[in-house]
């Protein structure tokens, strides 16, 4: 019953006309940018962040999460119609979605993506409402050692879940942690690694890093490839699903939702992994796996549901523990900090309307996506037809303004140039930038909690296993590490990512 009460608080906060407006605006803008090929949710949010500066905390967060879901949905639209994923979580959607579109079933593919996302969104929102407070209450028992163990667990699972080489992912995390050291040390006040540049005394900004590693370096990579986009020339018609199609898609949607909700909570998980895992699961369960890759509707429904569920439940660790579980949540945390909110259990207690308003707006955002996106499909197709040569200069400009307006600092724009160079190198060398970003964000808190725990125990690391909660978390982390090292599991993991 308390859940209903809480949700009531949330809806009354989020259902004001202006908040609804910001939600709608966020969803629309997010979809608009998300449709653009090669601009993922991370770059979208970082680029659109300045738009929310002038707003109050709640509408700002509502709009940002609207942008997030919108950009993800936009990515699926691009995946289905152009066979070019707008973002990595819709790579899987490409496989069967594009095949469906080629068979003239673009309408049903788009519809099942939207309906699947909506159903997943409803269930995941409920999951946040139910489990959020439980986890928050539990986290009251946490202190420095537990937080340290938890973050270590997060970083380890980010390594395990990263695509590509494990050892390089470890390297990227360490590099991220080291980059996070730049700036003033909180405990001693000593300024580290700034090379005497006063602008660096607060550290490297998150937005320059995110836009350098993801936004701008991806534009460069796109430009290197010869442009060959074939947009379906047939118009999209018949957005309705037939009952038979819906009946075969629904179980896939529910399975995808369940899988995505669980994987979304895991650090390092989130939308991308959820989509991959859901697709693999559907293929395994199918009576006739050969249909997959040739336009199986389950192959669109399950990953779409999973990535939406995962992207919602990944808010849980951020909102209850104050620990971002992936790069996008790290960006959301940055946005909250700008608004003067330090995410964590305390927010839920002190400002319930903020937490529950955000939860309620997630559901509203999903509903809006369903209502507006299908009728607006013509607009998105039109956006897709704009040649890339006209789009990318504007995207570069938005990236620049996004960075500059953060602190009105031209230095940060120039810093972005350096970070873009780093991002480009990582791209060319197959080093995943996502673990770097997570390491970068967790670097400060990780060090702080380690130092505090060590002061507590007079330098004896046994404290991490003496305290039961911390010990359990570390045991899970060890288990995860073991899984990567065991050859059988490793091969399975490689296979999963190849598929």
């Amino acid at each position, binding site marked *: 019953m308390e859940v209903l009460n809480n949700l009531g608080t949330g809806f009354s906060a989020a259902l004001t006309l202006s908040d609804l407006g910001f939600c709608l605006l966020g969803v629309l803008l997010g979809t608009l940018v998300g449709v653009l090929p090669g601009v993922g949710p991370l770059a979208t949010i970082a680029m659109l962040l300045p738009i929310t500066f002038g707003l109050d905390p709640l509408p700002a967060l509502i709009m940002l999460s609207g942008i997030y879901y919108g950009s993800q949905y936009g990515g699926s639209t691009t995946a289905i119609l152009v066979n070019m994923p707008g973002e990595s979580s819709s790579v899987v959607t490409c496989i069967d979605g594009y095949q469906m579109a080629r068979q003239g079933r673009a309408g049903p593919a788009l519809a099942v993506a939207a309906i699947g996302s909506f159903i997943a969104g409803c269930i995941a929102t409920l999951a946040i409402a139910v489990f959020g407070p439980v986890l928050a209450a539990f986290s009251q028992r946490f202190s420095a050692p537990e937080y340290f163990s938890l973050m270590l667990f997060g970083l380890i699972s980010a390594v395990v879940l990263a695509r590509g080489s494990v050892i390089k992912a470890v390297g990227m995390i360490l*590099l991220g942690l080291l980059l996070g050291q730049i700036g003033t040390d909180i405990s001693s006040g000593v300024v580290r690694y700034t090379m005497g540049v006063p602008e660096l005394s607060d550290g490297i900004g998150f937005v320059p890093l995110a836009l350098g590693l993801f936004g701008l370096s991806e534009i460069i990579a796109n430009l290197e490839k010869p442009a060959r986009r074939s947009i379906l020339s047939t118009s999209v018609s018949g957005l309705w699903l037939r009952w038979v199609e819906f009946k075969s898609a629904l179980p896939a949607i529910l399975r995808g939702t369940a899988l995505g909700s669980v994987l979304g909570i895991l650090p390092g998980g989130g939308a991308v992994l959820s989509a991959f895992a859901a697709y693999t699961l559907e293929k395994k369960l199918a009576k006739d796996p050969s249909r997959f890759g040739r336009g199986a509707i389950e192959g669109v429904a399950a990953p779409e549901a999973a990535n939406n569920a995962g992207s919602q439940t990944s808010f849980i660790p951020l909102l209850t523990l104050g620990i971002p579980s992936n790069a996008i949540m790290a960006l959301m945390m940055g946005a909250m900090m700008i608004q003067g909110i330090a995410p964590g259990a305390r927010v839920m207690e002190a400002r319930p309307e903020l937490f529950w308003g955000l939860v309620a707006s997630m559901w509203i955002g999903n509903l809006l996506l369903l209502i507006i996106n299908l009728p607006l499909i013509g607009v998105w197709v039109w956006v897709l037809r704009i040649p890339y040569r006209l789009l990318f200069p504007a995207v570069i400009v938005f990236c620049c303004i996004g960075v500059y307006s953060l602190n009105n600092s031209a230095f940060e724009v120039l810093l972005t140039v350096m970070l873009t160079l780093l991002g480009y190198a990582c791209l060319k060398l197959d080093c995943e930038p996502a673990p770097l970003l997570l390491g970068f964000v967790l670097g400060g808190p990780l060090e702080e909690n380690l130092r505090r725990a060590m002061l507590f125990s007079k330098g004896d690391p046994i404290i991490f296993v003496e305290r039961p909660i911390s010990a359990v978390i570390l045991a899970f982390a060890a288990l995860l590490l073991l899984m990567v090292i065991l050859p059988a599991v490793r091969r399975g993991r490689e296979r999963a990512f190849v598929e």
Partner: protein
Amino acid sequence: MAIRNLKDFLSGAMFITFGALGLWFGRGYTVGTTFQMGPGYFPLVLSIGLIAIGLIVVVRSLAQTGDAPERGSLRPLAVVLCAVTAFGLLVEFAGLIAAVAVTVLVGGLASLESRRLELAILAVGTAVFCAALFVYGLGLPIPLWPR
């Protein structure tokens, strides 16, 4: 000994370089003890860890074969970096409109498909749009015109 996996070799070299930079520039920070960690403790651990990982990756690249990094033309990289640099250098004293227009004009050169007239129109259009949205619409304190 031959490098069999150039991608990994370079990745390892990158990790080692950053680790070495971390050690070198962090050499003056007090390390302290495990009990009372100084500001140099964590950076030291990270730098050493990064060098160790880099060494493993490099050694592995000598043993396992892999593909070399794709060769792309340097044009997009160089041009996009120039465009962003131009924005950073111009925005403070030439104002948003000029900075945006120059960034579009320069950035457009990154693609061989760009056409001059089209790019000029795009530059003007983007500049007007950005001024309207960010300065008039959102009220961000960015100067519009040269000082």
